[in-house]
Structures are given as C-alpha cells and as structure tokens.
C-alpha cells in the first residue's frame, strides 16, 4: 500500500487536524478500556477523526479502494477490546461527530451523531421530561455510537430493555461505501430489520453516522430501596422472589461485602459495612404502583433474611445510594492494583449456585473476587483482583475466568451480557455456538462485508473459516443422497 498516497487522500477529506499518524500521538489509540494484559495493544496505521457522515463515507470508499481495514471507535471505554485496530489500518474515531441534531418531544425520539456522550443526551432531554434508558456504568464517558455497537446494557435495562430496544433507526455507512438510513420513527418498516442486525454487531457490519434513539418519558414516581443481607445467597434468593412475584423493578443491583467495603472507604455512600451483601432496588412508574410494589419488595426482602431495609425518599438520598453502585469499579483501586472484570449472564434462578461457584473458584485460584452486578437480569460481573507484577497471577486469572465462563454456560448462561465479545472473548465463542451457528453468523458478516474491511478479527474465534466446513458438509450430503454437486 502506498502510505503516502493514503495519507494525502485522508488529509484532503478531513483536513490536517483530523489525521494522526505520528507514532507518539498514536500511542493512546493502541489501547481501549480492555486490559492490555489480556487484549494486548495494537497500533493503527493512522487514526482519522471525521466530523461528518460524508467524510466517513469518503474514508470508507478510500479504504475500500486501498483494501485496508477500518476499525470504528467511540470513547474507547469498551472492555472487550472491540475498538482495537488489530490489523492496523484506519482507526476511525467518531468523537468529533457529537451533535444532537433533533429532539422530537411529541413523538419521543432524538436524532444524534454517534459521538454524543450517553449521559449528556439524558441530561439534555431531562428538563423536557425524557431520558435515554440505556445507562452503562461508563455513561459519563461512553458514546451513543459505542452503545449501538455493543448493544450496551446498564442497571435500568432490567425494566427498559437494552440499547437494541431503544434504537429506532440508523444512518450507516456500509463497507461498500453506500450510506443508508435503516428503520425510522414508525415501527415495522418492511424488509430485513437491518437496524436490529446492526445493533450489537461491534462495528463489523457498518459504521453508524447518525442514530435515531427512542426517548423514554421520565416516570411519575421513583423509589429506591437498599436491603442488607447476611450473605450473597439470601440476597440472591430475594432477587428471585421479587421477580417471581411479578414485580419488575427499574433496576435490581447486588454488591458483595468486598465491594461494600471498597465503596464505603472511597465514597462513604452509607452502605451497611457489616452486611454480607446489599441489594439496591429501584422501582418506578405510576405513583400508585410504585408505592404498592415498594411495600411488597421490602416484605419479600425481610422474608429472605434481610437484616435492614432502607428507603431513599428524596432525590438526594437516591443519588447517594446510586453513587456507591455507579462508582464501584473505580473503588476497586483501593483493594488491588489490577482487576479483571468478567461479564456473563445466567438464568436468574441459577444465581445462588453460580455465586457459590465463584466463591469456590476464588479460593481454588487464591484470587480475591468482588461481585457487583445486575442481579435482576442475572448479569454478573465478578471482578477478579490481581497484581500483574506477581508472577503467575495473570495465568491464574485467565484460568479462573475460563472456569467461571464454563460454569455459567453449563447452567444455561452466556459469555457476555453487555460488554461484548470483541477481541477478548472471541475464542470462547465455541463454548456456546456450534460451527454451524458460527458459519451462519459468518454468512451475515459476509453479506455486509465480503472483504472483511470493517473491524476484522473480532467476534469470531481466531482462525475461524467456514469454507472448509461447508465443503465437507456438501461432500457428506452428496454421499448420503448419491448426487453430485455442480
């Protein structure tokens, strides 16, 4: 490839302040929020920062012509390494495309550019009575485009659903260079649901240049309860009891003792430090329903062994209770120089045995594990604490992670609930999917991106290829049927 020619063409598209290829300046783009120990660092050939959809389209056409890969990236807060330019090429950083283009209150949607920060959108729409429901822990920094790529979750998706449920349409640049709008404010637009397919595809199928998001009306009433339990087991049982009672909280979060201690030391959120586990339960909706549900939830918690149930009555009290939860990952620095966050989902009723297994694995591998997670939808986040300078610890962390994932899969769970597969978990994909499953997904990828230009080497296991598999299958079928293929 003629690097100089590429550089000049890029400069012509985005101007001198949009092209970064100085090795020192590129350093920061070699990483994202995934742990370098596990995901490595990968230098793009060039980082490009477009300002408009037209520029993105030009860049993609250019990359197509040169046959070089393009890796899209938002704020780089992803934990699975999906925003790393594994094969070099162009790293397309979308953060300058950060305008809110339209807020339609009457019909409840907004059109934003992908670089808009998640929390800023909700802050902007709140005075008008709306919010954007997906609220990942990184919402102060992460972008809507990144949320779309990862189908991000967050505490409130228990009631409101994940990002996919809140995306009405997308303007997207396809690997072919074509720029199209999918979906729209009215549902059931004819044809394949390309919007649904693109959300969560981790930038491997298209690069999003505008997002039409559903805005959710702020609830009339909100109630937050904090329930302290002697151990994780009883807290897990309370979680199941609440869901089984037909109550759908807006959020239902759990923290274990290690997390409570770290959070208290760092932020003084007022959590009971002697508790073995706490549940943070938010109820929202119509005033009448919230009041009735709050009483029922408190009662269920006590029945399951809660030693204390507190109700936050003012917005300030609510905020303080949430502060501890939202800052939990940050507080881990108090406990350990490094931590590795495992994101996995199990069926809700499997939470108690899963927590026991995590505890056993913690002992077996001599690694401390803190637990802070979305209990309501069975999405756990064991945080494995370690010190990368201690010889052998990294290997133990990896073995422990594999064992946790394997256990979760064995009880009917999955590899990732909300962080994505990216680079980090792609080799685990064969734990839950057969070769045929993966081939069908590869078919989807190929239909969008036959030359594998967009975010290569992500999602699929390393070295995965469907060609051989298909040839073998055809042979077998031909033998069985006694026919020949032409």
């Amino acid at each position, binding site marked *: 490839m003629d690097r100089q020619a590429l550089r000049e063409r890029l400069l012509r598209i985005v101007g001198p302040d949009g092209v970064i290829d100085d090795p020192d300046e590129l350093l920061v783009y070699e990483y994202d929020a995934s742990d370098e120990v596990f995901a490595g660092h990968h230098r793009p050939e060039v980082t490009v920062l477009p300002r408009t959809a037209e520029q993105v389209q030009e860049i993609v056409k250019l990359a197509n012509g040169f046959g070089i890969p393009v890796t899209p990236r938002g704020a780089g807060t992803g934990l699975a390494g999906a925003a790393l330019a594994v094969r070099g090429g162009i790293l397309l950083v979308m953060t300058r495309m950060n305008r809110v283009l339209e807020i339609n209150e009457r019909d409840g949607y907004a059109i934003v550019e992908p670089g808009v920060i998640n929390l800023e959108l909700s802050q902007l729409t709140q005075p008008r009575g709306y919010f954007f429901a997906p609220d990942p822990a990184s919402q102060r920094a992460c972008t809507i485009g990144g949320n779309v790529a990862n189908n991000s979750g967050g505490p409130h998706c228990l009631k409101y659903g994940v990002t996919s449920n809140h995306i009405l349409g997308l303007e997207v640049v396809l690997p072919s260079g074509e720029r199209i709008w999918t979906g729209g404010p*009215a549902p059931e637009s004819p044809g394949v649901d390309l919007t649904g397919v693109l959300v969560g595809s981790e930038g491997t199928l298209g690069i999003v240049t505008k997002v039409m998001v559903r805005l959710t009306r702020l609830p009339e009433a909100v109630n937050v309860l904090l329930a302290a339990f002697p151990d994780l087991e009883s807290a897990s049982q309370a979680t199941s009891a609440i869901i089984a009672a037909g109550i759908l909280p807006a959020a239902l979060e759990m923290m274990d003792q290690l997390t409570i201690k770290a959070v208290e030391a760092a932020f003084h959120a007022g959590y009971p430090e002697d508790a073995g586990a706490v549940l943070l339960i938010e109820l929202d909706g119509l005033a009448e329903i919230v009041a009735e549900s709050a009483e029922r939830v408190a009662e269920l918690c006590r029945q399951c062994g809660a030693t204390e149930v507190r109700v936050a009555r003012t917005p300030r009290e609510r905020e303080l209770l949430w502060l501890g939860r939202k800052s939990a990952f940050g507080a881990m620095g108090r406990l350990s120089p490094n931590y590795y966050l495992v994101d996995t989902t199990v069926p809700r009723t499997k939470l108690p045995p899963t927590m026991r297994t995590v505890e056993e694995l913690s002992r077996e591998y001599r690694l401390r594990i803190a637990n802070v997670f979305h209990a309501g939808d*069975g999405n756990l986040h064991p945080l494995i604490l370690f010190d990368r300078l201690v010889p052998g610890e990294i290997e133990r962390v990896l073995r422990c992670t594999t064992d946790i994932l394997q256990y979760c899969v064995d009880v009917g769970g999955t590899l990732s609930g909300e962080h994505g597969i990216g680079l980090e978990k792609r080799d685990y994909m064969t734990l839950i999917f057969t070769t045929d499953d993966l081939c069908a997904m590869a078919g989807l990828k190929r239909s969008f991106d036959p030359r594998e230009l967009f975010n290569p080497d992500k999602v699929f296991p390393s070295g995965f290829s469907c060609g051989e598999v298909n040839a073998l299958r055809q042979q077998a079928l031909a033998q069985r049927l006694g026919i020949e293929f032409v």
Partner: protein
Amino acid sequence: MVAPHSVAALQEIVAVASQAGLATVPWGGGTQMGLGNLPRAFDLALDLRKLNAIVQYEPDDLTVAVQAGCTLGGLSAKLGAHGQMLPVDCPTPDRTTIGGLVATGLSGPRRYGYGALRDLLIGISVVLPSGQLSRGGGMVVKNVSGYDMMRLHYAALGSLGVIVQLNFKVIPKPRSERTVVAAYRRLADAAEGALRIRFSQLVPTAIVLLDGRAARVVGLNLQGWVAALRCEGPPVAVQRQADRIGEVVRPAAERLDVLEGGASERLWAEISGAIAAAPLDRAIRVRIGQNPSELPQLAEEIDRACTGLAAERSRWLDIGSGLCYTALASEREADLRLAWERLARLGLHATLLSAPPAVKVDTDVFGREPAGLAVMRALKETFDPTGILNPGRFVGWL
C-alpha cells in the same frame, strides 16, 4: 405438503429441497399465507405444526423456549397457569403458530405497552436451506454474544431460513384491566386527547383511534371518531389510571365509557381481529407507518386519496405505536389497485397486508423500495443461494 416430526427430519427435507431446487413454503397455522408478494413458484409446503413442543419453560426465570409450530393458544395456556403471558395481539390464537408470529412480524396495539415480539425474543434456531441448524441468542434475558440472529429472521417472512425454535422472555400477566372509550365528533379532538395521554407520564398499554365504520366493525355503535385507551396492571393502579385518563380525554368527548375486565379484553380482541382480518374477496388492507403526532393528518390524506375509489373505508390509528391500518372495500378491483398505488406513497412506509391476487400483480406489496435492499439481496443470496425459500414473496421480490 410434508409435516416433519423432528428438527432432524426437517433438516434433511430442506437440504433435499434445496438440492432439487424445490420452491419451499414454510407453513404454520396458515392464517397469514396471503401476506407478501405473489410467490414466483410453489412446489413444497412445509407444515411445521408437528414441531409444537414447549421445549423449556422456567417460570421463575420468566423465560420459555418453544418450537415454531406451537400455537399461541397452546403456549398461552401453559404460561397462564403460572400467571404469565406472551403479550401479543392475535385474533386466532388457536390457529396462529409462534413461528408464524415471528416470521410475519405482525403486531397489534399492545405493542405500545409491551414492545413487539422482536423485543421479547432472546434466542432462535433456524434450519437454513443447506440443512444446517443455526442458533443465535440463548435462554438469558441479556446477551450480546454473537450477532443478533433473532432480528435477522424476525419479519423476514421465512425467506432466509425455516424457524424451528424461539426463546422468549415472558411477562407477568396483569391482574386487571380497563379500557376508556371516548367518542368524538371530530378527529382533531379525538387525536388531541390521545396524544396528550401518549405525551404524559401515564402508562396505558394501547392507544387506538377508530373512525365510525371501524368502530362499528369492532362492535362499538358510535359515530365520528372513537378513542380507546387500555390500562393493565394491579387493580388499584388500573382504576386510578383509567380515572386520570378519563379526566384528560373527557372534555371534548361526546360520550365516555369505561369497559372493565372481560368487556375490555373482548374489545381488544375485536380490534386486533379487525386489524389482522383474513383477506376478503373485494377488499384490501393497508398498513402505513407514520409519526404518532402526524397520524391524524395521515387519516385525512387517506380519505382524500380514496375519494371515489372505495364504497367502504375504515381506519384504525394506532397512536401508541405509529401505525395506521386501513381497510377498503369495492366491487371494482381496478379501483382497489388504484387506491393501493396512492396509499403506497403516504406516510413513512406502506404495506399491502391483504388484497385479491389480481390487485397484487406487478406491485410490491411492501411499497416503496427500502433503503438497504442491496444488503437484503446479499443476505438472501448468502442464506438461500438457490432461492428455494418463499421465492419472490418477500420485499423487493426476494
């Protein structure tokens, strides 16, 4: 017609059909076989009703895995025993299969409160034309492992694979319901009230406006325009909410009724029945998508577009979701065709849900060409390279 008893048998049949180039039509309860374009060819009907097992039901997890041929009625009975439900509007639950619901992607007014089935779908198994079994998602409510294969097949009309199993998150059944029914002389007044509710913090599960004829079709003997707003949940909350809705919509109304329990449920069964009615001999049904706030204007545009073309005309405005359903009847097929051609240009998108075959000749019932048709074509070529599944029936005659 073949009716396989097992997924393995189905895989074999599909692989053979693929090799032999047989145009294959997956078939459930057969209630929506008229949906889509006229097929290019039809050799083999694949009756999926024997694949009707409820594979796994975990009431405490609120998840269920069910084979495609299971009827909605069969599934609902099982879920209902545990106080749960799959919240989908369907007039023929004892015939309609779960696979059919997902393949057609038809939704009703309750979509506003509960989302469409696509929002509740957490896993899928599909037999591809190669005979391969392809699965996506799983049995957990939050999952980002791999591509969203559920969305790929949802509403793709069985054109990319034969759906054999679907996993859903299910919803606790509301303990009570009420519907506020308000009649107005003018559409503008009806719409004003309905939109104010949609814009408020109240949480009805369905909001529909019906014109006079549509109201009579569903058994409401009222003139002008009728607003129907459905509340579901715990009894006290339902009562309070219905009261509060009444306060908002009452002032301009000629008349206001509140239907409780069974009466409310029956009205909505009638409404979803009318929206998804079986094709009539001399009638067409059209679905048009539009911003909720612009639906009243759309209703008037429909009126103008059909002047002189249809003897009978009824309109249902799903204000909650942003969809308008129109039924037109006429003795003259040429008039129906002309009406469709005009309606196809209105709103954000339009679909001819049902029509006599003559009306469907040489027109794409999915209306204007969707953006991304090239990708859809590439998907069709990849997943169904020999074009055996429902050939020609889907959007763009794929």
